[in-house]
């Protein structure tokens, strides 16, 4: 017996949970970016230049969306060798993304953007930092899935966990695109 059953042939509850969670995470970033807009109209607002590294990190995370989609397809075709490789690649690109964000933060910091103040730079640390935390969360989930594919005691035929992870990964990708456009536009 299982709790999660297709009682009514609807969307799998775990997938649905992910969609609602995405809505919830979006609200947090909506709160932060609207705070950014409100603040940017007030005195002592300082703009910053978007770090060069952010463009490279954008490329990395866009590419990782592609690899996780291919991983999902490989899983559905039961091409497990290929699937493991692609998941590992996705995690690798995720690490590259976070490292590049870190480099971008360092560049800003060395350029004199500190926590003192309340301009675009301080918001950028917080908003991009929180986004990076969400990417790290996704990487932890992918690593768990990856380890299960190697060491799992039971063989798993359900694509639901991989699909949920892929949905989340595409979401943090698109969220970053939104944030980047937002920073470039208003920063």
């Amino acid at each position, binding site marked *: 017996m299982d709790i*999660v059953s297709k009682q009514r042939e609807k969307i799998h509850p775990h997938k649905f*949970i992910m969609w609602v969670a995405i809505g919830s995470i979006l609200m947090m970033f909506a709160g932060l970016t609207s705070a950014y807009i409100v603040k940017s109209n007030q005195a002592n607002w300082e703009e910053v230049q978007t770090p060069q590294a952010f463009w490279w990190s954008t490329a990395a995370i866009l590419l990782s969306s592609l690899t996780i989609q291919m991983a999902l397809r490989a899983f559905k075709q039961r091409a497990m060798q290929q699937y493991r490789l692609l998941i590992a690649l996705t995690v690798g690109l995720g690490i590259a993304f976070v490292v590049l964000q870190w480099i971008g933060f360092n560049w800003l910091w060395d350029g004199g953007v500190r926590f003192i103040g309340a301009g675009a730079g301080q918001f950028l640390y917080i908003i991009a930092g929180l986004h990076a935390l969400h990417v790290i969360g996704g990487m932890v989930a992918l690593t768990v899935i990856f380890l299960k594919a190697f060491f799992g005691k039971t063989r798993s035929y359900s694509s639901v966990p991989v699909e949920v992870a892929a949905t989340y990964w595409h979401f943090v990708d698109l969220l970053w695109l939104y944030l980047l456009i937002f920073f470039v536009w208003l920063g």
Partner: protein
Amino acid sequence: MNENITPNVPPGTTASHGGLHTGHDGNGHGHDDHHHKQSFVSKYIFSMDHKTIAKQFLITGIIWAIVGGLFSVLFRLQLAYPDETFPILETFFGRWAKGGQIQPEFYYALITMHGTVLVFFVLTGGLSGTFANLLIPLQVGARDMASPFMNMLSYWFFFLASVVMFSSLFVQTGPASGGWTSYPPLSALQGAAEGSKIGMDLWIVSMALFVVSSLLGGLNYIATILNMRTKGMSMTRMPLTMWAILFTAILGVLSFPVLLSGFILLLFDRNLGTSFYLSDIVLNGQILPNEGGSAILYQHLFWFLGHPEVYIIILPAMGLVSEVMSVNARKPIFGYMAMVGSLLAITILAFLVWAHHMFVSGLNPFLGSVFVLLTLLIAIPSAIKVFNWITTLWRGNIRFTPGMMFSIGFVSMFISGGLTGIWLGNSTLDIHLHDTYFVVAHFHIVMGVSAFFGMFAGVYHWFPKMFGRYLNNTLAYIHFWVTLVGAYLIFWPMHYQGLAGVPRRYVDFRLWSSFNHFTDLNKMITVVSIIVFAVQLMFVFNFFYSIFKGRKVRSTNPWGSNTLEWTTPINPGHGNWPGEIPEVHRWAYDYGKDGRDHIMQTEPLNPNETKH
């Protein structure tokens, strides 16, 4: 096992939900699992059974309610007897009550923690956590939540938040003391007050953990209600409890993250030197370097949650009351679709009225008038609900069970408190009434006491389902009457104090000769508060005593109710139904239909019956 279910189980998910079982004898208390032994820890502590998690939420909520209630008794002592000394307080609280008198700093900490504890830990965690967990799988016909693991995490984040908040009571500089709203700059500057030091950091951390708990719970509630209903359980056949909890969860999932973002900025301002909320401040004669921040920004972020939060508190109570009232009036709920529609309308309006908390904070008056209009619109769905409750009672065959008494009490409280909402929703009146006892009276009646009444209705009604025993009725009726009369005696006079201009949150009014005539009134309020608090302790005694010694439930459906939870065994095991999950053929409110007392949802339609 259900033939319809097993073959469709997505393979591979079984492993992650292993250890599930159903009791054969339908007596899941202690000796139900012959073939799958659960340890004490996995059964009662790190349990994934939604019913156990519900009890964990309820008992944690009860403990918090005692703590939060005790705080109010303490600060009421100060308000009524500012000249007296209570040496016993010094014994317990040391320098916070030097010479047996509550010190101003301690007073502010008490009101702050009273608000925080009651609003979040009791009426959000304790109320939603208990009844969403208990009722969702039982009433929609599911074995458990969509993700039992996340559900367990939800409780343990709540527990962790509780531990952090509780520990803040014992730090050297005391707990947070800037009000439950924690407005900057008071909350953002360590040097602003004793309570703005480590106590404030612990408050923010605890609240962040609480937000995580609410989100994990809310995601599960939504997914379970929308995706895991049993065969035949269409949305419009669900009991109103489910609708109310669904909308509550949607409100929480959309508004709590915004609060979290506000707290993150506050943490940075406190500890890393940013100035999101700080500008042009002189603190203890020192000019601070912070510039360009806006304290109003925090108020926007806070009240974008803060206002939906009051509906997060009241909607589940409304759902519980609707269900208990219909069962005990032996009548279908009046205007089922209007009830659902008004819940939806309240949910939408909840997001559009937050600035009515900020009428006097320098908000553009034109913007204020828009928020006045939107705020007053809430009167419409609220009035629809009140009308429907009263018409449900009308010519009903009312059984005055304790649950029913509290439901009727809820309607009384909700009307009394709701009417003053119309006053406060007007920005012009708010100039006079804001931050006075009028506001205190309003929200305590309409949100605090009402939600407690809904919660009590739920506890008395579903206690037999939770523990297989009844609460003691005599104690229950004493509990009800003293609480109802007491709540009115406490809060009704506060309206007059507020109209006279008595400000809230003030520690001492002795030098304010224009308020001298309220001295005796304040004493009366305090005495009644102590009596009402004592009666709540009696309820707590009744609760714990009845878990072990209460009268046993002998039938599966003691209230003659239609909903699915009463088709389970008296003490259901994990999985709820020993056999198949029942199929649903009708809505939840067929009471007194075709000359029959009640027709359960599982009963198929007659050939000449119309579908609902």
